[in-house]
């Protein structure tokens, strides 16, 4: 009798599996895909055409979902010449508003403190000059300010309390901390091993940082050193580098699970993903199902990492789902070309 009851309870538990929903941008197809993962299978629910010029590639790059889950935001890299930010309803996946940003707007996040959106203007146009972080009020969709940072800024992520925005400048090799309230740069940190900072001319940072993510529970941020093949740990209390961890080739994007246990980094040059339990010494490396691994987001329950893989030329973009405990790809789905930006929307029972 007791055994039967247990079996029924087990079956009921199984039937209430989690449904994960997230958005992925396909940069060379001008589409965004809404994807569902039910614990076993990944399904593309909808492919949403984005942009306004049918015969021009507008390059959907960054994605984020607001804390309420009512809207998702997309940065379109190319414009005339400025890129733009488009606000979509998660209810209809139709655009509701738009504003112009800087050159090649890329990654972004909304502060839980100010409700403002902070988006880096990557400016991938070969110009070795400082670019900026655009601050946008998502309610009015007004660009309030462009805060100058470094050359080719990328990886905009907010501190857990929403007070600070972090980004790294890929070519000038710097970490920037922006005060979300005063809208000013609060602190900068040179990430290169040498201090030969020369922002004039064609300085190319050997670290070539491409992403920064704050730890959800500790006063640390982690930077992807795309050029130096390392993850750099920075203590934000003392504002110093406290560790450099070797990785595979070309770490690109990073996410840390909300329980603070897992750090996942995409290894762009290796077509692999690094899954690192932060309290263990040796990370696992997972092979992706195509080349040019790009973005990553971890589900809020800290179980899965959803990783985008661009492919090359006519290859479709991919999303690989990695079970973090198993450090293994458990599902994969093809979407539009050059899958890049990814944002988690919701979990449903």
């Amino acid at each position: 009798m007791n055994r039967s009851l247990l079996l029924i309870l087990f079956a009921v538990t199984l039937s209430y599996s989690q449904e994960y929903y997230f958005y992925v941008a396909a940069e060379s197809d001008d589409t965004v895909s809404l994807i569902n993962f039910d614990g076993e299978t990944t399904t593309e629910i909808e492919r949403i055409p984005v942009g306004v010029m049918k015969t021009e590639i507008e390059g959907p790059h960054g994605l984020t979902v607001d804390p309420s889950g009512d809207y998702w935001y997309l940065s379109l890299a190319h414009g005339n010449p400025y890129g733009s930010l488009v606000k979509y309803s998660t209810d209809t996946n139709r655009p509701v508003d738009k504003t112009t940003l800087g050159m090649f707007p890329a990654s972004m996040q909304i502060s839980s403190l100010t409700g403002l959106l902070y988006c880096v203007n990557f400016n991938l146009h070969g110009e070795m000059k400082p670019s900026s972080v655009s601050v946008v009020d998502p309610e009015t969709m007004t660009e309030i300010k462009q805060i100058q940072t470094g050359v080719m800024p990328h990886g905009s992520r907010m501190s857990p309390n929403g007070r600070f925005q972090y980004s790294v400048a890929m070519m000038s090799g710097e970490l920037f901390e922006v005060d979300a309230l005063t809208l000013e740069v609060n602190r900068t940190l040179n990430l290169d091993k040498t201090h030969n900072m020369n922002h004039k001319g064609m300085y190319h940072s050997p670290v070539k940082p491409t992403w920064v993510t704050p730890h959800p529970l500790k006063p640390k941020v982690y930077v992807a050193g795309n050029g130096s093949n390392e993850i750099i740990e920075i203590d934000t209390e003392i504002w110093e580098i406290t560790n450099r961890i070797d990785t595979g080739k070309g770490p690109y994007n990073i996410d840390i699970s909300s329980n603070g246990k897992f750090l996942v980094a995409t290894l762009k040059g290796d077509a692999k993903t690094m899954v690192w339990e932060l309290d263990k010494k040796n990370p696992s490396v997972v092979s992706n199902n195509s080349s040019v691994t790009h973005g990553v987001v971890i589900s809020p329950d800290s179980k899965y990492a959803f990783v985008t893989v661009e492919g090359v030329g006519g290859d479709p973009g991919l999303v690989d789902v990695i079970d973090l405990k198993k450090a293994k790809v458990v599902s994969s789905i093809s979407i539009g070309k050059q899958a890049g930006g990814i944002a988690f929307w919701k979990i449903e029972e």
Partner: protein
Amino acid sequence: MKKYTFNLIFSALLLTTATMFSQELVVKSNLEGLTMSVGETFKPTSFAENLKGEKIMCQAVIYYNKKGVFSTAKAVTVNRGEGTIRANEPGTHEIVALCIGQQGQRLSRTFPIQVDFPKAKEIKITLSASKVYEGSFLPLDFEVVDEMNFTRKNEFFQLSTDSDNIKIDAFNNVKAVSPGKAILSASFDEISTSLTIDILDNPVEKLELRASLDVARTGDVVSYEAIGYDSAGKLIEGLPFSYTFSGKAVDKSNNASGLIMNDGRFVAEVIGDYMVSASIGSSSVSRPLKVVGRGIEREVLKVGKGVVTDKHTSDFWVFEGVDGRDYAVTGTWGADGTSFFWDVTDPTSIKKIDSVKVDARTVNDVKVSQDGRISVISREGASDRKNGIIILDVSNPYDVKVLSEYTKNLTGGVHNVFIDNDHVYALSGSQRYYIINIKDPKNPVEVGMFEVGKEGQSIHDVWIEDGIAYSSNWRDGVYLVDVGNGIAGGSPSNPVAFANYDYATGAHHATFPFKSKSTGKFYTVLGDEIFPDGVDENNPNITAGFLHFVDFSDLDNPIEVAKYELPGQGSHNYWIEDDILYVAMYGGGVRIVDISGELLGDLFRQGREIGYIMTGTSDAYIPNATMAWGAQLYKGYVFYSDWNSGLGSSKVSELKPDNSKANQYINKTPIID
């Protein structure tokens, strides 16, 4: 213990504030109802208030101009360091106060701010005619200059007069009723002015209206000249005639429409009988004009196709190879970086002969050097994000070879390129173009760069002819740049801009220079690219925009004189040769248009279309879905690329269209050919 107590109290305070923020709140601010003067600075204070009127302090308040950060938002600026706003321009502007609660809950409100116009310093009424004759209306302009030297054109201030010989209506139309002196008065903002007008006797006893034609075709520009004589039969110089027209179309459901200019030029759009009139005061003269069809329609036959069945096709170029045979190259869009090469020596039998695949998703543009040896293709969506251009050896189009890749300063993606005299002109990041010497095509070298140099500068295309680069710069219009012509001392390494024209829509996408064989006039033909409803993958796209014909005969004073607009379809790329326009109008196919003679007004409505080609095919990537990309006249054949179909060729016949299969209820209107 003390620390815990403090934390408890602090937490309680935060909880209280958080609870209060969860109530219905509104932002209160001294911005409400604020009126400022230009140059004035104001320090706003704002807080949240609940329905009981209880005040809740914000952790921080962020103020911003609702227009954003660009130059359009300079009317009111925010100084966050000082916590102030400053009024810079008159008008009504919007400032948003964003209150950040102690727990981070946000609350915002938009406040309209009135910035008063400075007090008027001077008001002006200007009469733009040298002579005013009885019976005529006065051409007047109005202007206010204020104490800060802001000028307001056509500010409405009601005119008045004590003179009996002029009449003023409620809209400030002033009619000269009888000869003599008249005084017009006006006041505005406690400033007054007056204008004295000499109204002359109408000296005209006899009028004559001369015309360049009495029978014209639709689209022909007819020049009228009115001449007045006094009672002695003497010619009166400098009479300010007004020209008008009326008419009756052959088609009873149509209007006899056209365009008449102040200088007496008239162009009719439809077949019919017109009456052109010139008047001065109460005297007028008319002259009939018979308008017939142009008789230019020709049968256009599709003769060959090179279908691309698995990808979208982008731009193309047809060229004579070093072996004397004829070839074409086509790009692909949103695909795998392939370009196709075709033998088009026999346009009725187009053969795919080679392809080149590079690391890209879109090869938007393809061009071939004048000697047929080098091709340059553009890259967007390269996996290493370096994009740039690829230089190809096409001296044997059956075996195309990659010579080099060039990416310096072109990493944001190259959308369009042009080759001219060993130089490639390559667009960079939608902002500027770089000029690259390819004399040694394996080792390209950057030698120059051109950009408009304005905030938000943008570019979509560049075309070179006779050492002049014509760049299409969206809202900044066309720039004519000397890159070797000599007109402004420019060269590829020293490009010098010498002329510019822009227009209101700001959608300037492509330029083709056009020297009219029939008139000798020099035009730039400027094309729009507009998708008014954005992209709809599941339905045919709505396109808009048209070609603007700008008379550039006087480089310092270009004048937009005509347009070609196909109703319901937008323009893309085009070609002009022998006074004939071949224009890809997306879903409207390729349109072949007679642009001979003087150009004035709406060319489509003037019946100038010779014929058209619907470029879709049944065996295409997307079957039967015409989406014409570009057109090129080559050795008597009209070649074209179609986004959904690939490459095609057609021939404009000498024959009139075969109407034997036309709808029996359509009667063609008569023409004189």
